[in-house]
């Protein structure tokens, strides 16, 4: 029996933000502003979601002038399905009733230095 994923309200807010623009790579401050989460809450959630393979992370391919490269995040294909299901469940709807955002062709991310894509068995996808 697959496990049902229960996400905290903060995690759902983050999943909602990421699912709103599933093909875009988002940076931490952008997500923090949209969700109202502080960095001390946002990043532990991102770490857990990346561990579960729901979120993928990548460094900016090109360094902006005078600034360091940013770490970027977006939902994986499985993560998008999980997020859609979780958001629908939180809203009291069936996943099938929620039109999932259409996934666009993704730009190739910069190579990751330390991929952390440990999938947990039975993720509610």
């Amino acid at each position, binding site marked *: 029996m697959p496990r049902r994923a229960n996400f905290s309200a903060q995690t759902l807010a983050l999943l909602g933000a990421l699912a709103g623009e599933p093909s875009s790579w988002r940076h931490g401050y952008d997500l923090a502003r949209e969700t109202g989460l502080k960095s001390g809450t946002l990043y532990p959630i991102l770490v857990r979601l990346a561990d579960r393979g729901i979120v993928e992370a990548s460094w900016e391919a090109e360094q902006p002038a005078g600034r360091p490269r940013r770490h970027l995040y977006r939902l994986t294909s499985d993560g998008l399905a999980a997020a859609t299901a979780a958001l629908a469940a939180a809203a009291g709807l069936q996943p099938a009733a929620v039109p999932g955002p259409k996934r666009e062709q993704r730009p190739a991310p910069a190579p990751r230095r330390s991929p952390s894509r440990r999938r947990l068995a*039975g993720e509610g996808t």
Partner: protein
Amino acid sequence: MECRGGAAMERLDGLLTWSLGAVARLLPPERREWAEAVQQEAAHLPGGWPRLDWLAGGLWLVVREAHVVRKFVYWAGIGGVAAIAGWALWRSWTNVPRIDVEVGTDRVRLLVAATALIALPWIGRRRGWFGPVGNSVAARLGRVAGCAAIWSPALYLVRLDKQTGQTGYSPGGINWLQEIGGLVLLAAVVTVPLIIKAMRPAAETSTLWSLSGMAAVIVLVILPVQMLAIVYIAGILLATSRRSVVTSASLIGGAIAGLVAALITNQLASHVEELGLAVFGLMVLVILLAAVPAGTISAWLVSGHQDQAELREARIRQGLLAGTVAGACCGLVAVTFEMFMVFAMVLGPAAGLVGGALGGAFADQHQLPRRDGSRAAGFFVSSS
């Protein structure tokens, strides 16, 4: 980006940025990029409070992910145990009558216990039997509290030594034959089952260790008392190591039952003159009865076995272990109240073993409601 708020804010900003870079080294290598991500993102934020707040969040991320608080508490506990041990040794050497053969016996006892406290974790690190400590709070607390409790009777001995000749207490002269023979016997109790198993692989492992356990109880009675310290320290380290088969429920249930039993036996000990020798039988009975609920609860909570026979075996095993923990905990605490309760350190685990087995047998057929839940994902994401 220019920092709003003046030079002080800028300095604080610089300090936090530097601190985040420094503490990121506490994280395992595969996690460090997350601290770096927070740090680099901060450079894109407006200066002043928003950036300071962001960097402080990064520090919190490292504290969480590197388990800094847990490590600090654990090492503070280890430091506390080392301090108690050092204090007992120092007092033994400075505050008691000098050059007294009997006092020398207690000094040997303290030194043996201190050596075990240092040597066993070192051996454990190399071979994995005694360490590293398990991940649960119960294992960490159990290890630190157990090792600290070992030093309570040591301090009691030191206090008695200070009053040598006034209390009627006599530790006796040192007998090196008994000391060395004791260690050999103890080593034999541990190694003989392993040798038999290596020579006869068909031999039942649980039977061998049960016989070894019974032999250990008999051997402990004739061993010099400092061997008890070695056995207890080894037992505490074994039960709380990462490889240990003792579950958190068994550790917690056993410890609580043991503490309750110790309080009751302490009350009984105050009536020793009225009750006479019957008090010892009553104490054993109290330990046995206290171990039953500990064994029942820990067995009750065992799950994760599909096969009913396996589940039953696992439950009885946890019942036995919880009972033994209860008996050992009772013995360790009771001896703190009254030195003559040292017998409880030997008989306690044996009585607890029996009580725990009874408790495990009560719960071995219990059906748990199905729970696939896990909190492994932590605070923010959980599954149930």
